[in-house]
C-alpha cells in the first residue's frame, strides 16, 4: 500500500515506475551489447582478444582475421539478434492477441508455410525470377500467403474470433507440414538434404547479404508492434473490454498479423525454421517483469537477441559436431516449457 493523497503524489509514482522501466530496458540493451562482444570472441578460427580489439579499431594488418570478424562473425551475430528479436516479439504479440500461452509463429502455421515456399524454390527452382534471392524470397511470399489463408479461413460474418484464428493456423500449418513431407519424399537425395538442412534452422550461412535482406521487414514489423503498445495492453484485458475502451479491434488484428508476418517472414527467409524462441522468451520476461507491453516488447527485442546469440554460439561450438540451432532450441524448449507451466502463478489464461 502506498500513500497517495494528491495528484502530485500520483505523478511521482508514475514517474518512478517509468524510471524503473527505462532502467530495466537500458540494462537489457547493455546486456545485449556485452553478449555481442563476448560471443564475438568465440568461433572455430582462433583469434585472441587483442587480435579482435585491433581488428575492430581498424588498426590490424591481419586480413584473414578481419575477414573472420567483419565478414563472418559480426553479420552472423547481427542476424541472430534480428531473428531472435523478431521471433520473440512476434510470439509475445501472438500470445497477447490470441490470449493463449501456446501461441507462437510456428503455431499459426507461418513457419511451415515459409518452409514449404523455400522447399519449392530449392526443389523446382520456382521463384527463379528473384535470382539469388530465390529461396528467401519464396519463404517470405509464402509467409504472407499462409497468414492470408489463415485469416480468410477464420473470418465469419461476425468478424474473426481469436480461438478460430488459432485453430485455423494449426490446420494450415499442418497442411503445409504435410506438403513439405510429400515434397521431401519425391525429390532426389541432393535436393532433399538441402531442404532438410534448411528446415532445421541455422545461422551458418548468414552474412551481410542475409542481414541486409532481413533487417528491413524485421524492423518494419517490430516498429509496427512498438507503435501498438497501448493497444496490446488493452487487448490483454480482453477484446470486448478493449473495444469498449475505444480500440478498433479489427484494425489492430490486421496490423498485428501484418507486423508478425513481416518479422517472421524476414527471419525464416534467412535462418530457416527455428522453433520455441517465440514461445520461451516472452514467457520468461512476463514472469520477470509483468504484463505491460511497454516493458515487454523492448525486453523481447533485446532479450530475444541475447537468447538467440547464446543459442547459436552454443550450437556452433559446444559440441564436437556443430548442431543446427533449430535443433538446440527444440531440445531446450520442451523441458523449459514444462517448467514454465508448473511454476507460473500469476496468470489465469482464458
Amino acid at each position: 500500500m502506498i500513500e497517495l493523497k494528491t495528484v502530485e503524489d500520483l505523478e511521482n509514482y508514475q514517474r518512478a515506475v517509468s524510471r524503473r522501466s527505462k532502467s530495466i530496458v537500458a540494462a537489457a540493451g547493455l546486456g545485449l551489447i556485452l553478449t555481442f562482444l563476448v560471443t564475438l570472441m568465440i568461433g572455430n578460427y582462433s583469434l585472441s582478444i587483442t587480435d579482435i580489439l585491433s581488428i575492430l579499431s581498424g588498426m590490424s594488418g591481419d586480413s584473414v582475421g578481419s575477414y573472420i570478424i567483419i565478414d563472418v562473425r559480426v553479420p552472423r551475430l547481427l542476424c541472430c539478434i534480428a531473428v531472435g528479436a523478431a521471433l520473440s516479439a512476434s510470439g509475445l504479440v501472438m500470445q497477447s492477441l490470441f490470449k493463449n500461452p501456446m501461441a507462437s509463429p510456428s503455431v499459426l502455421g507461418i513457419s511451415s508455410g515459409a518452409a514449404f515456399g523455400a522447399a519449392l524454390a530449392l526443389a523446382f527452382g520456382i521463384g527463379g525470377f528473384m535470382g539469388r534471392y530465390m529461396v528467401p524470397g519464396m519463404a517470405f511470399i509464402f509467409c504472407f500467403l499462409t497468414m492470408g489463408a489463415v485469416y480468410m479461413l477464420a473470418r465469419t460474418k461476425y468478424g474473426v474470433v481469436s480461438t478460430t484464428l488459432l485453430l485455423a493456423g494449426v490446420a494450415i500449418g499442418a497442411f503445409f507440414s504435410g506438403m513439405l513431407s510429400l515434397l521431401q519424399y519425391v525429390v532426389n537425395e541432393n535436393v532433399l538434404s538441402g531442404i532438410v538442412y534448411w528446415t532445421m534452422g541455422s545461422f551458418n550461412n548468414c552474412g551481410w547479404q542475409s542481414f541486409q535482406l532481413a533487417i528491413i521487414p524485421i524492423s518494419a514489423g517490430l516498429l509496427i508492434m512498438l507503435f501498438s503498445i497501448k493497444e496490446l495492453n488493452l487487448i490483454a484485458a480482453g477484446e470486448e473490454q478493449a473495444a469498449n475502451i475505444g480500440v478498433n479491434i479489427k484494425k489492430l488484428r490486421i496490423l498485428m498479423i501484418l507486423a508478425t508476418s513481416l518479422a517472421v517472414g524476414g527471419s525464416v527467409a534467412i535462418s530457416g525454421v527455428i522453433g520455441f524462441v517465440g514461445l520461451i522468451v516472452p514467457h520468461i520476461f512476463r514472469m520477470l517483469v509483468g504484463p505491460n507491453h511497454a516493458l515487454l516488447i523492448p525486453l523481447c527485442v533485446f532479450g530475444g537477441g541475447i537468447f538467440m546469440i547464446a543459442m547459436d554460439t552454443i550450437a556452433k561450438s559446444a559440441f564436437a559436431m556443430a548442431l543446427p540451432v533449430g535443433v538446440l532450441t527444440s531440445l531446450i524448449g520442451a523441458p523449459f516449457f514444462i517448467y514454465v507451466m508448473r511454476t507460473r502463478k500469476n496468470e489465469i489464461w482464458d
Partner: protein
Amino acid sequence: MVNNKLMAIAAAVILAAAAVGVYAFLNSGETEKKALYKLGAVVSEVDMGKCSATPAVIVTIEDMYRDYYGDLVSSSLTLADAKADTEFWNEYCSWEPMLKANPDGTYDVKITTGTKGTDTKKIPVSDTALAMGTMYSETLYYLICTEYGEEMYSDESYANQNILDYMNGTIAGGMQYSYYEDNDVDYMLKTVSKDSYYDLGVNSVQSLDSEKLTSALRQANEKTDGNVIYFASGTRILTSEHYNNNTGPCDATESYYAFFSPSEIKEVFPSIQCIGLLMGFSEETVDKLIEDIQLRLYRVYHSVQEKTDGGETVKAYWEGSSGKAINSAMGKVILNFLGFDTSLLDGAEHDLESLLTDKPVYLVWYTNDGRNLDERMRINN
C-alpha cells in the same frame, strides 16, 4: 449337451488350424524360392561413391558388366576402334575442355557457381588441395597412379612410396575423415594419414563452417610456398549466401577455388583435365588417364552390343537404401550403357507384386544399404 458338442468341434478346428500354421512356419525355411528370389535375377552391389560422373564410374560399369554378362567379348580393341565407332564416341567420349591455358601459366576455368550458374575464374597451378567431395581426391589418386604406372586400387599402388607421399602431401583436408572410414574409401585411408588431415567436420557445402575452412586454408598455406586450392561439389543448388560461405575464406586467405558438377559420362573427361592441370600434372599423364578410361568404356560397350544384338531389351531395377527405386540421371545412363531398359527407375516404391509383374532380370543395390539380402528381396513383407 449341444453346446458342449459345438465347443468340442470348435476346439478341434482351432487346434487343427494351429497345427497347420506351425507346420507352415517351420517349413518356411525354403526362402530361396520365395519373394523376389522367384525372379532368379542377377544381383549386384555397387559402391554409391562410384556411381556419379567421376572417373570411378568405369569401375562400376566394369563390375556390373562382369556380374551380369561375365567376361568381355574382346580385350584387344584399341582406341582407334573406339573412335571409329562414331555412335559410341559421340555419345560417351567426345568432350569440350572446361579450361583454357594462359601464357602466364594460369588457366581460365569455367566453374559452377550457386543457383545453377557458371563463372570463369583465373586459377594458377596449386600443389595443395582441400576437397569437399570424393571426386577430387579420387581423380588425383587416379592421376598419380597413371603417372607411376600402378593399377588403381591395387595393393602395389598402396605400397608405392611416391604415391603415398603425393597423396599425403597434396590432400591437406576436406570432408570428414570418418566418411572414408565408414565407407571403406581405401585410396584415402591407405594414403592420407588422419593426423595431418584437416577435418572440416561436415560433408556438404551447405553446412560448411566458414571459420573452419579459413583455418584449414591458412594452415595449408603456411605449410607450402605453392598455392592452395579448394575443390567442392554440390555448389549448383546453393543460394548466393551459402556460396559466399565457401568462397569468402578462399579470397581472404589468398587461396583458390574450383567447383565442378559433371552429370554425364563425357563430362568426366574435362573435369579430369581440369583437376589434373590445376594440380600440376603433365598433359601427357592427363591424356593417358583419359584415354585409358575411354578404352575401358569402349570394351564394355562393344561387348554389350555383341551380347544384346538382336535380343529383347530386358529390365533392370536399382533400389536405394530408402527402399525406393533410384531416379538419378547417372544411374539411368549406366544401365542404358549396359543395355537395360530403365523404365523402373522412377524414384517410387515398388512392392513385391509389381516387381514380380515387371520381371526385372538384374537387381542392383548399394553396398552401404543397411538391409540384408533377405530384407531387400522383400522376404519379410
